[in-house]
């Protein structure tokens, strides 16, 4: 049984802005779904329609097989965590967490028990009598989550809940959210523009672009098998290397470069070759059937500790998608620290290479 279902959901704001252009999806019980996409693509709008905070222009939303289009947010039995926490500033932590239960008519003892359990789970038990302005950002975010948890809703909704935290805390909270969601086994939708957050949290993620779902699937599926150029470039860090090319015989050509081993591609179209930084290597033996047509002039070496990321200009290539010299990026082991300006051969397996149609962004190989 689908826990949550969207059927051709569309949203046009009263001012005429079209935010969501027809989204279909089915979410199973307990799944952790992440909506990811650039800012302004319609993620929040979609989430807010599930919450009932935004009217649905067209289509249907079903929660446990019941159409909820006209059900108020309170009666949909969903809980939401907002980016700016949205705590009630004049209430204590306990007040914030119990308010929804009180309004739903729970008995006092029961409320206290639920609040204290949730507070213990979130490790904010010591702050129950403080006001939000006496808490740090991370603690406030926990309270916001606590307020959602105590209600034991059918669906959790998160709208960029970690964006206001510093990087370290963000990673910590990310892990905690994941753990909490597993433990509570509540269907969740999490909105973010951060692909790392999306990849690490999601059971399945939906990449959204301009009001449409470009592709939906497990994180690794989207990483290794993106359906479009947009998904390929949005998912993955460092970003996928892209090279605009044309087919000539069995080779892809860009400037003076010619890369062999490609078949069954349209000859007269502009194409884009995509190579993940971790599919490139500096020595031939690491890749299977190695192609070594590419060379870079090293520009920057980022040492991340366990591995290094090398950036450099692709030698002999035409221009990039935005008409600039083509930059390629390679992920290697920590031992590889090439000199700046040195020239490196790049090796890859043609099987790992992706080819997209430039015009539509659809994947050909």
């Amino acid at each position, binding site marked *: 049984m689908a826990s949550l279902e969207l059927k051709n959901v569309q949203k046009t704001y009263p001012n005429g802005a079209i935010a969501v252009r027809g989204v279909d999806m089915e979410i199973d019980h307990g799944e952790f779904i992440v909506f990811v996409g650039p800012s302004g693509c319609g993620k929040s709008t979609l989430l807010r329609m599930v*919450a009932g905070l935004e009217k649905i222009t067209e289509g249907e939303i079903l929660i446990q097989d019941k159409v909820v289009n006209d059900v*108020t947010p*309170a009666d949909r039995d969903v809980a939401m965590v*907002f980016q700016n926490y*949205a*705590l*009630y500033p004049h209430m204590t932590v306990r007040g914030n967490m119990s*308010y929804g239960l009180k*309004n739903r008519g729970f008995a006092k003892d029961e409320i206290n028990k639920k609040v204290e359990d949730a507070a213990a789970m979130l490790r904010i038990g010591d702050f129950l009598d403080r006001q939000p302005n006496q808490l740090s950002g991370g603690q406030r975010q926990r309270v916001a989550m606590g*307020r959602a948890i105590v209600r034991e809703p059918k669906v959790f909704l998160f709208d960029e809940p970690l964006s206001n935290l510093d990087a370290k805390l963000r990673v910590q909270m990310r892990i905690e959210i994941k753990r909490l969601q597993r433990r509570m086994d509540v269907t969740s939708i999490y909105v973010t523009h951060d692909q790392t957050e999306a990849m690490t949290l999601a059971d399945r993620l939906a990449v959204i672009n301009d009001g449409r779902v470009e592709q939906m699937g497990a994180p690794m599926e989207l990483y290794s098998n993106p359906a479009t150029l947009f998904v390929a470039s949005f998912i993955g860090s460092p970003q996928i290397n892209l090279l605009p090319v044309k087919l000539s015989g069995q080779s892809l050509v860009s400037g003076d470069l010619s890369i062999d081993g490609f078949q069954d591609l349209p000859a007269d179209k502009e194409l884009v070759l995509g190579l993940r930084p971790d599919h490139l290597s500096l020595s031939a033996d690491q890749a299977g059937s190695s192609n070594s047509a590419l060379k870079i002039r090293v520009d920057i070496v980022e040492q991340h500790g366990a591995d290094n990321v090398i950036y450099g200009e692709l030698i002999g290539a035409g221009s990039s998608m935005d008409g600039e010299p083509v930059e390629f990026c390679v992920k290697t082991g920590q031992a590889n620290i090439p000199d700046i300006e040195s020239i490196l051969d790049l090796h890859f397996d043609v099987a790992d290479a992706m080819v997209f149609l430039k015009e539509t962004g659809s994947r050909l190989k």
Partner: protein
Amino acid sequence: MRSLLNHLILIAGVLFLASPLYLVLVSSSHGSSTLQQLGLQWLPGDQLTNNYLAVFKLASGFSRQVTVVEMLRNSLIVALGSALLTTLFSLLAAYAFVFVRMHAVRTLFWVSLLTLLFPLEARFVNTFQITATLGLINTHTGIVLPTLALALGTLFFRQNFKGLPAEIQEAAQLDSAGPIKFLIDIVIPMYWRCITVVFVIAFILGWNQYLWPLMISTDDSLYTLVRGIRLMGQESGPGMALLVITLLPPLMLLIMCQRWFAKVLE
């Protein structure tokens, strides 16, 4: 140097604004004859207790004798009633203007602002007719009712409410708080300082009313302190004492709430 000069300017300003208060206070310690012959006094006199005792013994009025205690009671009823109701109505109006997201409501806001162009004084005749038709002449209700729509209070609340993050309203919605719960549990506790400020201003406006109560009440029993001052005579010692008594309640209220004024208006 600069800050010294600034301070001197500010001190001069305070002295200038405070001097009438001082004059009235000091003059209320002089006998009526001194005041009549020499005008207001800068130095304390010796009739202080006599004047204040006289105020409470004195009773005045055209057909009937009305005491200071009665006038004080009337002033309090009018000012408190006016302040409470004004605050309530402007709060509710602003709440609707900000939190009810409908076009019709937005339009009504501008209509309510238009009332700023028609102060009570400009519509005395019509207001008098309406009040008379309702049979409210010579009643406290008749004095209070026409002063209720304080567009400035509505505007003030609205500007403050607009600072409330939309997410808080949405969180409350998800927490099953309907419009009335949201008002009582969230908005009022968050904005009680603003509410106090509007209340105090409305209280002072209500307290200082002169012309409208004069028009709508002919019965002495409805005299407020502000009207009583005239009856006691401006150039008499007890008159000055009554003036001081009249000034005190709004002044005390203002001093009590001064901190919140500073917070809200900063």
